[in-house]
């Protein structure tokens, strides 16, 4: 094995070579390289991201030595971007590392087109005014954006992009698609070739549970006017029938059949999540539609026609007690059906492409096949513009958070982070940044926070004195452990966005370093 393959072995087992290739093609722009930014990039550089560009206009001061691992004593007085970039480069020479000695705020103001060259921008420690501007710039240029901020024992992570589509969402738990509630003719025919009453005890205990359930469901239906067990009593009766078929107590295949018996009665169809996707207006495609939505359009047609209300079969079956021969044959039957479904979808994709004026083979077989295999797990994420969220948050949610004990600290910090930025605009420093005057600053911060709440339509809502006091105690400190936590999450989300695997976070993540009861706020 080549060295990079060995070096990345433990992550290739998660996102595969395709995911790794996407990372190696990606270019990342980091704004501000304090500990939050440095730690975010550290995790991406280790994983072999294509290139990084570090933007920071400040010079290394003594206080950076106490919270940033990517500078050392000899860095004092030098460009922070340059020092951080050099130490990051040490971690992985396959990464192209560049730096720009310029203030991110100034760059946002003077050179908005600068950001168009990147795959993803990670903006750390930005105040609200710069955040809003950068958000608009990236949204217009269709560049993915992650905001990350550490502030004392709190902080936030927020993704911002118009839309993110995931084919390989790779959920931990997903109910397998065996079609036991509606077996197709080939599966039934295979079941018919196997005799449940076989006398050889070894064969008897190695009949796969899929076959047992198909046959027993058919037997049940023939005695119940074609219906499958549906009520609680019927389901229990069905399980008892299965139990009665056992000829020895150690027949694992029957135990598996009893455990999976509910799959016979599961209603046909698919999740409301997938329903929403195929009903989305983006599924009405034209020449500007993305490949993803073209395939969704084909999926929608398939479900309405040859799919008979079901998405394509994914074709994989779980391991189950079985003779090798039975299992291998069963696998072939599921794969054949998946292949037939894929061919039907492929044909529809080609037709749609032609209709919207694109090359009929513009989307490769491999991509369509992968889409079919994951059709039930498709995920679409959309993110509001930060400006829209800040000006008109979803009020019922906000009110719920303000009164819910589990959310009170998180939503308090959400408001106070904004209040601290307004404080900084008014007074040219963050509350509690310098010793002395803290009591006065607490009451000023409170006034601003109450003002924000009332602007948002939450008149009468207040935050606890303890929390406002806490925010002033933080004095905009960037603690390394908090920065490492926030940076860890920002890099994790960056990987999900770039590889287009797994589901990225929605909403705003508010870190609660007091008791770790962090929350996602959907506003």
């Amino acid at each position, binding site marked *: *094995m080549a060295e990079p393959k060995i*070096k990345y*072995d*433990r*992550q*290739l087992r*998660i996102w595969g070579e395709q995911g790794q290739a996407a990372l190696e093609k990606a270019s990342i722009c980091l704004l501000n390289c304090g*500990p939050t930014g440095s*730690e975010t990039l550290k*995790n991406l550089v*280790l*994983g*072999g991201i294509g290139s990084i560009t570090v933007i920071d206009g400040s010079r290394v*001061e*003594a*206080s950076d030595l*106490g*919270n*940033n*691992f990517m500078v*050392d*004593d000899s860095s*004092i*007085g030098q460009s922070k971007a340059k020092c951080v970039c050099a130490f990051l480069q*040490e*971690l992985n020479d396959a990464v192209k590392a560049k730096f720009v000695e310029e203030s991110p705020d100034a760059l946002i103001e003077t050179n908005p087109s600068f950001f168009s060259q990147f795959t993803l921008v990670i903006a750390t420690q930005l105040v609200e005014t710069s955040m809003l501007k950068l958000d608009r710039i990236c949204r217009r240029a269709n560049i993915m954006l992650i905001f990350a901020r550490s502030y*004392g*024992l709190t902080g936030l992570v927020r993704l911002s992009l118009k839309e993110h589509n995931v084919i390989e969402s790779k959920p*931990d738990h997903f109910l397998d698609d065996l079609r036991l509630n509606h077996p197709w003719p080939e599966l039934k025919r295979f079941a018919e070739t196997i005799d449940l009453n076989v006398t050889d005890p070894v064969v008897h205990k190695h009949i796969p549970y899929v076959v047992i359930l198909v046959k027993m469901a058919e037997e049940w239906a023939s005695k119940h006017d074609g219906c499958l067990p549906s009520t609680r009593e019927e389901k229990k009766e069905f399980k008892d029938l299965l139990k009665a078929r056992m000829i020895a107590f150690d027949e694992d295949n029957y135990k598996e059949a009893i455990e999976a018996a509910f799959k016979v009665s599961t209603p046909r169809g698919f999740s409301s999540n997938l329903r929403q996707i195929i009903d989305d207006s983006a599924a009405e495609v034209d020449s500007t539609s993305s490949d993803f939505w073209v395939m969704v359009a084909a999926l929608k047609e398939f479900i309405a026609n040859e799919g008979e209300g079901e998405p394509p079969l994914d074709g994989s079956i779980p*391991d189950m007690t*079985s*003779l*090798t021969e039975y*299992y291998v044959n069963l696998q072939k039957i599921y794969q054949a059906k998946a292949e037939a479904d894929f061919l039907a979808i492929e044909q529809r994709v080609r037709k749609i492409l032609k209709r919207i004026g694109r090359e009929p083979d513009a989307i490769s077989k491999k991509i369509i096949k992968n889409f079919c295999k994951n059709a039930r797990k498709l995920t679409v994420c959309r993110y509001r513009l930060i400006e829209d969220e800040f000006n008109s948050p979803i009020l019922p949610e906000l009110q719920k958070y303000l009164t819910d004990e589990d959310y009170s600290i998180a939503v308090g910090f959400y408001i106070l982070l904004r209040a601290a930025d307004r404080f900084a605009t008014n007074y040219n420093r963050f509350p*509690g940044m310098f010793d002395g005057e*803290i009591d006065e600053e607490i009451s000023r911060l409170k006034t601003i926070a109450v003002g924000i709440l009332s602007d948002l339509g939450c008149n009468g809502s207040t935050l606890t004195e*303890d*929390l406002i*006091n*806490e925010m002033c*105690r*933080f004095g905009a*400190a960037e*603690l*390394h*452990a908090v920065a*490492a936590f926030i940076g*860890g*999450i920002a*890099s*994790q*989300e960056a*990987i999900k966005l770039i590889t287009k695997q*797994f589901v990225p*976070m929605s909403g705003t*993540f508010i870190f609660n370093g*007091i*008791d*770790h009861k962090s929350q*996602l706020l959907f506003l």
Partner: protein
Amino acid sequence: MVDAEADISDRWRDLDKLLSRPGNLVGQTFDPSPDLKNDLRQYVKVLVVGAGGLGCELLKDLALSGFQNLEVIDMDRIEVTNLNRQFLFRLQDVGKPKAEVAAKRVMERISGVNIVPHFGRIQDKDLAFYNEFNIIALGLDSIEARSYINDVACSFLEYDSEDNPCEETIKPMVDGGTEGFKGHARVILPGVTPCFECTIWLFPPQTKFPLCTLAETPRTAAHCIEYAHLIKWDEVHGGNAFDADNPDHMQWIYTEAVKRAELFGIPGVTYTLTQGVVKNIIPAIASTNAIISAACALEALKIATGCSKMLSNYLSYNGVEGLHTKVTEFVRDKDCPVCGPGVLIELDTSITLQKFMELLGEHPKLLLSKSSISYQGENLYMQAPPVLEEMTRSNLTLPLFNLMGKVPKGVVNVSGMARKDDKKISCTRKLRVLFKGIDGVTDMDMASGA
């Protein structure tokens, strides 16, 4: 230009805010002052167990959270597959001891911090070594190693006469663990919050394939690989033990697995999968390790200074579908054999030490063999070294009651091998011995007065 030396005193500017200012959402012991950081730097010693993905992060996080006196223990050497996350190591470090390289790199970067590396097994350090530390931070990937350190930390715990834990004997631990996009961080204060053993059910035993499936009805690629690994290797190589780190051995397993898969028409055997199955490889990435270690380091800072409330007591993180964090307050197992006041054993005064040791082997909660026994710091019987064994051997035929100075009850410490899921693991246990038919109250008073 500002004088660089004077300026350096500003190094801990951000941390100082947290440690020197009062607040209301803080720990009970919090005493904010500029001295707090100095005390943290001068008096607090932390042991980091493991210098892998979590350990590297922990050392950096602790050093940048104000801790100055750190030690790290790890028995492993650096491998190429570590480099995607263990950021203190470079390609040219491959083959060197992890603990030593990790300590050196952090000390080079952060002036003032002192890290003592220990290249070796955690079982080879004595109790006195572990007792030196104020906090133990665990960055481990095995249940056995966690159990061992948990046993050690809990062995220092003493209870008063009302079965309340004595504060000064509590050895706090922070523990992290990751797998792919998931992980956990927890705080263990023995006697106060559940110890590792109290919640051992959080780690279900690994499911193994039945041998008859491997031999007779293989269905998956993993079955073919395990057949080559667990059955075919011994058939062909007899006495030559399989070594997962030997590439020739691994190649042989792979080739055999491919042959078997072809024979049965089973798809999917690859070299990568073969390694994964045989070595039971857990996928690991930098970002999850960073998140979990950061949470552990922050909690260590809170334990040492009280600068904020504490995680109570288990944080789980899952980034597979969106982002989920959850705090669960697990409860202690009151009868925990490790962190509880001790398993209660009632004995006749005539029971000899030899007989007592046999009872420990049969006791369902203990199943202890090869026991060494001590009472109030005195060795009653030691399995090793031979000199001590010989010195203590004559005690075996004496009644335990006599050996313990005829007290009605007392706590003995036992270290030995415990049976767990067909495996033997070394452990230490505290046992509360109660002698039948002795009037507890008066005798107890006499004992304490003696």
